């Protein structure tokens, strides 16, 4: 039995899974449908490979190629038959189990363990990413109309779309406002909590609860707090009737108006409504930052502080020269996670301002994508937005890595 290749079983397995998936995809009309003469040509090719394999290297690969040819024949017509190789791999393994070398067993089981997840991730995460780009090249992909290849036209329209730029600048302000605020407030709370306070559990629960609260419910509560007539905030600030969530004036414009400076467009800043949503978002995410930062703080060795205190360092100096640099990997992690999360903000905006606010002042990128794709049924344009967002996030993440990582002090 030495002629059997230890990698035969995993290869057959992989072929079976991929064959099944592609046959299913072809059945649903994705990609070129492999039917008719093309299917026969492919089967003939597989048979040729099998014959060649048999001629060159008699043994395991021959069997594999034969199974491949059979599956190739069956695939387009009967997707379930393409699963035959999976069965074959198990039978092979069962028959050879006691003679298989260690490497063969590892190869077989490694792939058996990985395939279920890998197949799901390929189908629902990897291929859709490529598919999004593909459909963004068409004119108005929807279920009703026939679409036509238009190349990068959607992207060209997108770059001249004022609403897209509005959404982009709103999202930009959202990131700029919420991520640093969340990290700074989180650091403050975590540092204070790390001072061996009593009732740590209670405080941690208080700060952490908003994070596990569903955003939909939290947004409902904050809408009630922001209510113009009966809201708590207006009572607290003594501003009865102020409609927080329907005030489209930019905050910078409002701040600088008394100075006689008129700001408009992007420089007017996020609207009051959007800042209200940001405050709610910081409230929601703070607990996460606190917990992560607290874990980071607790991993800083106490000896550093003790040594510095013997040298007469003040509390502020301890924080500035020990805590902050040694906490920087955690802070950096939070900055990246926060950036990616903030770029996809949707739920609280959609619940609190379902129409995107007054004059689209709270329209975010994800919300614009949602509106284009699922309200206007323009899947290709929505995909163009999605792909653009992907590149922007990628670019910003890499930029952040370059700019911030130099300041990150990794321990040891």
């Amino acid at each position, binding site marked *: 039995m030495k002629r059997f290749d230890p*990698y035969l079983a995993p290869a057959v397995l992989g072929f079976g899974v991929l064959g099944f998936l592609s046959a299913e995809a072809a059945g*649903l*009309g*994705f990609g070129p449908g492999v039917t008719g003469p093309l299917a026969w040509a492919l089967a003939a090719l597989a048979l040729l490979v099998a014959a060649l394999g048999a001629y060159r290297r008699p043994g395991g690969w021959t069997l594999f190629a034969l199974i491949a040819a059979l599956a190739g024949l069956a695939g387009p017509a009967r997707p379930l038959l393409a699963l035959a190789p999976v069965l074959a791999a198990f039978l092979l393994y069962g028959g050879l189990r006691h003679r298989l070398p260690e*490497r063969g*067993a*590892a190869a*077989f089981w*490694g792939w058996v363990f*990985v395939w*279920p*997840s890998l197949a*799901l*991730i390929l189908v*629902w*995460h*990897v291929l*859709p*990413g490529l*598919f*999004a780009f593909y*459909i963004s090249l068409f004119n108005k992909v929807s*279920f009703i109309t026939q679409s036509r290849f238009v190349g990068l036209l959607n992207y060209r329209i997108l770059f001249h779309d004022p609403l897209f730029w509005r959404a982009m600048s709103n999202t930009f302000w959202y990131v700029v406002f919420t991520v640093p605020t969340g990290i700074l407030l989180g650091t*403050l*709370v975590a540092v*204070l*909590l790390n001072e061996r*306070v009593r009732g740590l559990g209670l405080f*941690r*629960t*208080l700060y*952490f*609860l908003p994070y*596990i609260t*569903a955003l*939909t419910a*939290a947004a*409902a*509560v*904050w809408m*009630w*707090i922001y209510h113009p007539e009966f809201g708590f905030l207006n009572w607290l600030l003594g501003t009865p009737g102020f409609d927080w969530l329907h005030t489209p004036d930019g905050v910078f414009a409002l701040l600088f108006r008394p100075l006689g400076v008129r700001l408009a467009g992007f420089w007017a800043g996020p609207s009051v409504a959007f800042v209200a949503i940001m405050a709610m978002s910081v409230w929601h995410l*703070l607990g996460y930052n606190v*917990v992560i930062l*607290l*874990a*980071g703080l607790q991993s800083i060795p106490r000896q550093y502080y003790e040594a510095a205190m013997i040298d007469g360092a003040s509390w502020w100096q301890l924080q500035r020269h020990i805590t902050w640099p040694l906490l920087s990997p955690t802070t950096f*992690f939070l900055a990246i996670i926060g950036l990616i999360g903030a*770029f*996809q903000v949707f739920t609280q905006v*959609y*619940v609190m301002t379902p129409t995107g606010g007054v004059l689209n002042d709270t329209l975010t990128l994800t919300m614009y*994508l949602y509106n284009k*794709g699922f309200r206007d049924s323009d*899947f290709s344009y*929505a995909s163009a937005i*999605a*792909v653009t*967002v992907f590149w922007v996030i990628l670019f910003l*993440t890499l930029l952040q890595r370059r700019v911030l990582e130099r300041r990150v002090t990794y321990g040891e």
Partner: protein
Amino acid sequence: MASRLRFLLGRALIYAVLTAGGGIMAFPFYWMLATSVKSPQEAQQAEPIWVPQRMRPANWQAAMRLGAEGGNRWWGGFAPGRTVTFFVAAGGEGPRPRVRIPKPPGAFHDPRSEGTRIAVERVPGGWRFSFTNTTHRRFRLLPVVLYLPKSYRAVRPELAPDAVRSAGDYWRMEWVNLSPGLFGYVFHNYREAWHAAPFARYFYVSFVTAGTQVVVGLFLAAMAGFAFARVRFPGREPVFLLLLGTMMIPGEVLLIPNYIVLAKLGWLDTFYALIVPWLASVFGIFLLRQFYRSLPQDLFDAARIDGASYLTLLFRIALPLAVPGLVTFGIFNFLGAYNALLWPLIVTQSPEMRTVQVGLQAFIGEAGSDYGQLMAASTMAILPIVVGYFFAQRQFVEGIARSGIK
């Protein structure tokens, strides 16, 4: 002495800042709970009401007695043949008060208001009203509107009215339910919200979705993570890099292609659409891989030499030792699935397939100005997670903390 004073001042400052911050963090929860037990009139006050009427023990007693008369001391109701008697203390003299049971707006025929016999009698110190259900039906609520002349002094109804308005020479007092029972009184808004939208179905959908995602997701991630950590199979590194690469793809890119695939499969508006796309999680695989790698390799080598198969290695050795990692991922997965709004919003259309969050989002639009019911619905929506948090506090916090350490 000075340093001692400074230390004490510093501690006081720390506690002051933490308490103030904690108060701000907790306030929305308090406000949600307080509003959820308020009547509409209490909720819609310019001046906030800190302790609503429905949280006052004096009213609980009356609610319990009235509920017992109507049917049940805990949940109230207005059962056939029962008589609910209600006393309003009123000093002085004046015309006879008027009382009626309001009809639902626009109703042509209302068995409750037509089938209830109302008796009004003058008793020492006030007026007594009795309501008798002459129908054969049991009603959940007994709403009552009472017009009491303003000439009476020291008016004190046995149960505080849900709304008092001035109507000419009369006070118009309203009760949304005059035979509430204790829970029916305190949790009135909860019960009404529960009946106003199919929340039971929403919870069922949410729990099936999140539960399946957690169970199957754990199984898949436990297997794949183990293979990446402890099985040396050909192609391991490239496949792992591919998986890590998918973490770069933001979720919003996947919305449209996955929606199209689901539509072609005919899976829209089914459990498949809610569950299947999110079963396998790269994050989970990565987390569990890290966990398995922290276990000693010798353990696996020894078992392998003793003839254990890889299946035994995974299910008998690795999994029992990786329980904290599994709990972390399970909690994360459940939170994500239960709290998600965007995806279920996209792939479901019918109310039967709404998750709690989508249902709540729809309820926000439908509830209008009844903020009491809306806050009750919100409280119900977050309750499972909060209760879970209090039962497994350590696992939650450590789980989240662990996710940040790579």
